């Protein structure tokens, strides 16, 4: 994604928003200029703290998912026996909307950050494990045999083939999961916390009816998602250089 394209997209969205605000002409839809001004003011007054809390939760949830799901996906993808055992379990659990477990998880893990991170982990875990497993099982047998002929046993195959081969899948899974993760973040921050963008948006919009501040929170949340997209893109360019050469 080029910076110029992002800038054009922002201009287009703001243009459409401005037009809609002028047509609606009600407090519930302030103009983007009003919101941007409030956003800059709110960032100095505490929005930044909410942003930092959300960033920590979503990053922790994603990191935990990668650390658990990527090795599990690798192991299942590399072993037919493990795949036979675990793939049906994954297929049974994958379609269940994990958000329904929010009350149960809060009941078990309390109202702190742990429950919020675990909910995100549950959702992202399945997306990552499925993609990494498919990537690992799709590695050409000739490539494996080639490495085996160089003396590689199971451990070296993991180190030199499965691990680097699954890296793009992990990053793709992360990219695909960012939208979901941020949406889930909003849901988990609606209750049992006084910090986080979800709480901020809900409090400003539904309790104080301070719509410009509410939209400032929405902008902060989209910046959070955008920053994560850019981070994943940056990691991909750094770690998967081979994908970007002709």
């Amino acid at each position: 994604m080029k910076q110029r394209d992002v800038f054009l997209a922002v201009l287009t969205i703001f243009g459409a928003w401005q037009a809609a605000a002028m047509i609606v002409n009600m407090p519930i839809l302030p103009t983007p200029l009003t919101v941007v001004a409030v956003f800059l003011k709110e960032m100095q007054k505490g929005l930044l703290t909410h942003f930092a809390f959300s960033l920590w939760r979503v990053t922790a949830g994603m990191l935990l998912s990668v650390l658990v799901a990527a090795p599990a996906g690798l192991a299942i993808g590399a072993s037919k026996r493990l795949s036979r055992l675990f793939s049906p379990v994954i297929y049974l659990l994958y379609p269940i909307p994990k958000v329904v477990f929010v009350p149960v998880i809060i009941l078990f893990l309390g109202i702190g950050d742990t429950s919020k991170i675990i909910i995100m982990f549950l959702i992202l875990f399945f997306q990552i494990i499925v993609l990494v497993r498919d990537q690992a099982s799709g590695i050409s047998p000739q490539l494996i045999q080639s490495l085996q002929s160089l003396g590689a046993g199971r451990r070296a195959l993991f180190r030199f083939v499965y691990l680097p081969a699954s890296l793009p899948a992990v990053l793709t899974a992360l990219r695909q999961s960012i939208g979901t993760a941020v949406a889930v973040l909003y849901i988990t921050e609606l209750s049992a916390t006084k910090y986080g963008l979800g709480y901020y948006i809900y409090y400003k919009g539904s309790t104080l009816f301070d719509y410009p501040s509410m939209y400032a929170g929405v902008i902060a949340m989209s910046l959070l998602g955008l920053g994560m997209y850019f981070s994943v893109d940056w990691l991909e360019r750094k770690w998967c250089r081979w994908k970007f050469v002709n």
Partner: protein
Amino acid sequence: MINIQSLTFEYANHLPLFQNFNWTVSRGETWSILGPSGCGKTTLLYLLAGLKFPTVGEVSINGEQITRPRPRTGLILQDYGLLPWATVRENIALGIKVRMFYGADGKHTPDNFIPSDSAERWMQRLGLSEAADQFPGQLSGGQRQRAAIARTLALEPDLLLMDEPFSSLDAITRKDLQNLTLLLCAEHNITLVIVTHSLEEAAVLGKKILLLAPAPNSTARIFNNPNAAQSGFRNAPEFHEMCECLWAEMQKEASVPA
């Protein structure tokens, strides 16, 4: 060097590809394995590489029964087997890295293994220095196969197994790499076993040619081709005679009802 005794090999629910098959190869020889599709050429190579194992019988190299890939056997495949995410330099050094990963355990790595700069030397020798930092996706087919050869030779093999390594290359590159392979094998006294479906390639590369028949193979039909690898052999009458002889044999087999 290679000794195959009473080999029987079959894939599950299939007829055996080999049945009580015997074959021997001496050190430093160059062999081509030729035969129709599905006759077991590649399987035989994988048996030698320690990637498949006999149903019955024994495959041994230098007197040792093959139960796993042998550190001094090199295998080069048609699709090069290069890691797409590693540069040419990293790919060529891969075998050394794998050995360093395990250390001299005598199983994955020879007991007397000492890390060397052989990868760098082979990269230079095969003219890949300029492409050292490029990825396989940026290379031509010939360069990729050169990288695969360099990677294998960096491990100083005494046996080189090649499975249709030049079949996807253009005629000029193929001839160039065939000559290079013969030269390097002669220089380093490497035993070469190459699987091909090309009569001409079999005749150019193999001083001995093993012609496999449609499965099951019970006898090794061997053709001596002593002038292979000599300069100008491709234009010599012996080359054309050998090709015609192989062609006639293969035609004869094709016409025999199964």
